[in-house]
């Protein structure tokens, strides 16, 4: 064990302690504080669980999570099967389209849906114009709308994990069932489906936990009675009301505990269940079926349907971005570039901030992620597994927990919150595992003997890293970089608690403009701009990372 490795380990632990463990423990301690006193106790938690309102909120969130999981599973299962198993033209394109919501901000989808399906939205207005209905139908406001938009947003996670499962099954396992006398559907039920269950669970956890972390979408749909939303409202708007503030903090902690608990439970289960591949000779693409004409037609129809729903988001955002006064009309009629003029000329600071904060967060991410990946894959430094565990845990922590804990922890004592560096810092911590996981995965694929050969030839460890490892890791690292940037770029749940005047980012701008109600066009233009920027970045990843699917996979590990 070299001293260099120990030093790296010490520095990484210091960063984790200061920016992860310290604020999060601060949050937990704060949740035990009894308002108005210097004492600590369980009072807040007792109040929380005794209050029928908060219990209802809790139950609502749980219900939403269950409904979203059921919906995504029912829609995603056939879709994943189609994408994984059928030989179809244009599959890559459809895959890319269907996976698009992974990188689109959830709030953009919610806006688009309201504009299109809302009470005075395109669909209702058209139906009324044609005389099919006399009163607008409530398509989206309420639980059903929330289930719909969150399902659309989370569908890719289920599809990705299931289709990976379908692809990875050794074809001979299904052939054996076939030979044993099990025809089509029977075989699917008894062999295929059980074998994909570990993959499914990995995706299902992400889907199930989302309603415990997404505070904004319910608010956009006029709903507050969900755990994350009520936390946000309590903490941001009622910080003078001590009771509500502490109820907010308790909800954040309760959400976090649920998220981390379910995350850990599923992780354990998956690791125990993971069916080790026995075979050596499986084909890369798994079992591909040539579909019959009828199957083919229905598969295309199904993919089209989902793709259109997904495409609705950028299209509607685009329409509102290039128009003004799109009210009570099925489609906008006044076209203008005014919105963009406003963004670029009058408030360029939003764009600047977005790039600056995401960029700085990215630098932090690389400076932390590369050495961490090296440490975890290539050394035997004591405590490295714990370090890995703590970092991975950040996948499960709701963004709101990071935001609130930063607000609490870095206000007094370490007064970082008064400097803009807190913004990129919180983004970095929030997305801590992303870059690390990419670098980690690339490191695992890099044969150690390539590095050993360099050392035997006389290069130092440092020289070996820069001359051999880094160039070979570059592709994976680059994909990790871009995905990290995309995620940081659209981040709102952490930043919303920490921003001050002049630190607004594009997502915050979207939120504020929507919140003021009147400036929907600007919010739409900003969302559209973000979609365009993200799309360009994705194209770069897809070119370099080999396949859009692969690019999307980089982010599929979890996003809250």
């Amino acid at each position, binding site marked *: 064990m070299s001293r260099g490795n120990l030093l790296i380990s010490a520095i990484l632990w210091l960063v984790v302690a200061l920016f992860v463990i310290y604020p999060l423990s601060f949050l937990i301690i704060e949740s035990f504080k009894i308002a108005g006193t210097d004492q600590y106790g369980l009072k807040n938690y007792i109040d929380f669980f005794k209050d029928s309102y908060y219990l209802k909120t809790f139950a609502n969130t749980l219900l939403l999570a269950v409904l979203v999981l059921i919906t995504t599973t029912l829609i995603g299962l056939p879709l994943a099967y189609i994408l994984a198993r059928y030989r179809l033209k244009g599959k890559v394109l459809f895959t890319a389209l269907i996976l698009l919501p992974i990188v689109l901000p959830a709030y953009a989808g919610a806006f688009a849906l309201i504009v299109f399906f809302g009470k005075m939205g395109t669909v209702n207005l058209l139906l009324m114009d044609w005389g099919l209905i006399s009163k607008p139908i409530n398509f989206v406001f309420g639980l059903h709308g929330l289930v719909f938009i969150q399902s659309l947003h989370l569908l890719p996670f289920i599809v990705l994990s299931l289709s990976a499962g379908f692809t990875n099954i050794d074809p*001979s396992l299904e052939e054996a*069932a076939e*030979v044993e006398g099990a025809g089509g559907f029977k075989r699917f039920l*008894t062999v295929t489906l059980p074998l994909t269950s570990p993959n499914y669970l990995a995706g299902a956890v992400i889907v199930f936990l989302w309603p415990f972390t997404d505070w904004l979408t319910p608010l956009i749909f006029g709903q507050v009675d969900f755990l994350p939303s009520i936390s946000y409202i309590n903490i941001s708007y009622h910080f003078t009301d001590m009771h509500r503030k502490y109820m907010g903090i308790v909800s954040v902690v309760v959400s976090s505990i649920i998220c981390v608990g379910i995350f850990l439970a599923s992780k354990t289960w998956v690791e125990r269940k993971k069916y080790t591949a*026995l075979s*050596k*000779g499986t084909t890369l693409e798994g079992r591909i079926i040539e579909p019959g004409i009828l199957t083919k037609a229905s598969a295309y129809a199904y993919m089209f349907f989902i793709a259109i729903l997904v495409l609705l988001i950028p299209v509607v955002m685009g329409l509102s971005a290039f128009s003004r006064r799109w009210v009570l009309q099925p489609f906008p009629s006044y076209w203008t570039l005014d919105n963009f003029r406003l963004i670029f000329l009058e408030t360029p600071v939003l764009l600047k901030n977005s790039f600056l904060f995401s960029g700085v967060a990215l630098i932090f991410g690389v400076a932390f992620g590369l050495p961490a990946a090296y440490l975890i894959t290539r050394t035997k430094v004591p405590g490295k597994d714990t370090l890995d565990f703590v970092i991975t845990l950040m996948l499960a922590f709701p963004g709101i927990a990071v935001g609130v804990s930063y607000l609490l922890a870095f206000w007094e004592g370490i007064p970082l919150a008064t400097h803009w560096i807190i913004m990129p810092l919180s983004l970095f911590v929030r997305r801590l595992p992303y870059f690390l996981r990419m670098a980690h995965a690339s490191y695992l694929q890099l044969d150690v003997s390539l590095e050993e050969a360099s050392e035997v030839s006389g290069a130092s460890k440092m020289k070996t890293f820069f001359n051999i490892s880094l160039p070979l890791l570059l592709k994976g690292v680059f994909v990790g970089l871009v995905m990290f940037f995309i995620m940081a770029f659209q981040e709102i749940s952490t930043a919303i608690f920490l921003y001050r005047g002049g630190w607004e980012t594009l997502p915050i701008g979207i939120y504020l403009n929507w919140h003021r109600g009147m400036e929907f066009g600007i919010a739409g233009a900003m969302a559209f701009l973000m979609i365009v920027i993200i799309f360009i970045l994705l194209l770069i990843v897809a070119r370099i990372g080999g396949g859009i699917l692969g690019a999307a996979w980089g982010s599929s590990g979890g996003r809250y």
Partner: protein
Amino acid sequence: MAFIKIEKLLKKFGTMVAVNHIDLEIEKGEMLTLLGPSGCGKTTTLRCIAGLEKPDEGDILIDGRPMFSKGFVPPSQREIGMVFQNYAVWPHLRVFHNIAYGLKLQKLSKHVIKEKVTEALDSVGLTGLGRRYPGQLSGGQQQRVALARALVRNPKVLLLDEPLSNLDAKLREKMRFEIKSLVRRMHMTAVYVTHDQAEAMVISDRIAVMETGNIVQVDVPEEIYKKPANRFVADFIGTTNFIPGEISEAPRDRDLIHVKTEFGQKISCRVFDSAAAVVNQKVHVSIRPEDIEVFTKSPEGRDNLFKGTIQHRAYLGNFLYFFVNVDSTMIRVQVAYDVRQKEGEELFLYLNPEKCIALT
């Protein structure tokens, strides 16, 4: 009529012809091996019999029932058992349920299933391991589960696709005999695919040697070894020497012909393909290393006697290989382990004409 009948079977993958119009008949209760190097079409042929691949042309009949050409019977209805190269034991099912899978589909009673599975477990030597998950078994044990699963329904045909290739050498050898005796005991008709010629020799009643999508020879193991149909078979089965030359004399009334070798000497040898026994025909004379006798002094009155120098001497424990240089042609000779000659010494090789075969 043969139990399995394959006629003019053609299977293409894109433009690549994997199986090229082959004919094959397999008798009831016979164990036939499809043998050949990788890419020769043996596994594709097996998968066509199983119904896991749909042929492009040809007929397949099992027990008189058409499987292909007149319609296509899916694998689930062919009443076959199959052992896969990677065992394909379902990791999410206990051993018992792996084996019971096909029985349950036949809607047999619980009691009967239990009895049959227990019996199958006993027959492959896995008594009492029914409650284990496959992940808790060794590779060899998983392989036995696969075998039990394939046999438990008493299928019409047992198909084995390189079932031993993932096992270590010692276990592989042991399992060869176990599979053979089990299949024989059950009077099972079996088709076995392997690229290991030693395995094929041990396990088969007959061997069909395949090369680039064609069957080049079908016969019992001894005949394949002794009378290979062409150079490919002679080379693939066992070890042999090839001496290139040209037929100089081919008398019709005699068994033996004469070949003029490249190093200018004459070899008397046999030829099985009379069409090839034409003067000036280019041939390779094949002789196995163990069929060559060595002498330190030239024995009197023998043909096919060649003088050479020992170039290398390789000790393999139970015997020795001499690589003997005869006028720049290297000939491998197998001799007893206690032969004393050293590298560089001279020897006389006697190539028994009865054992020399001219191949085109």
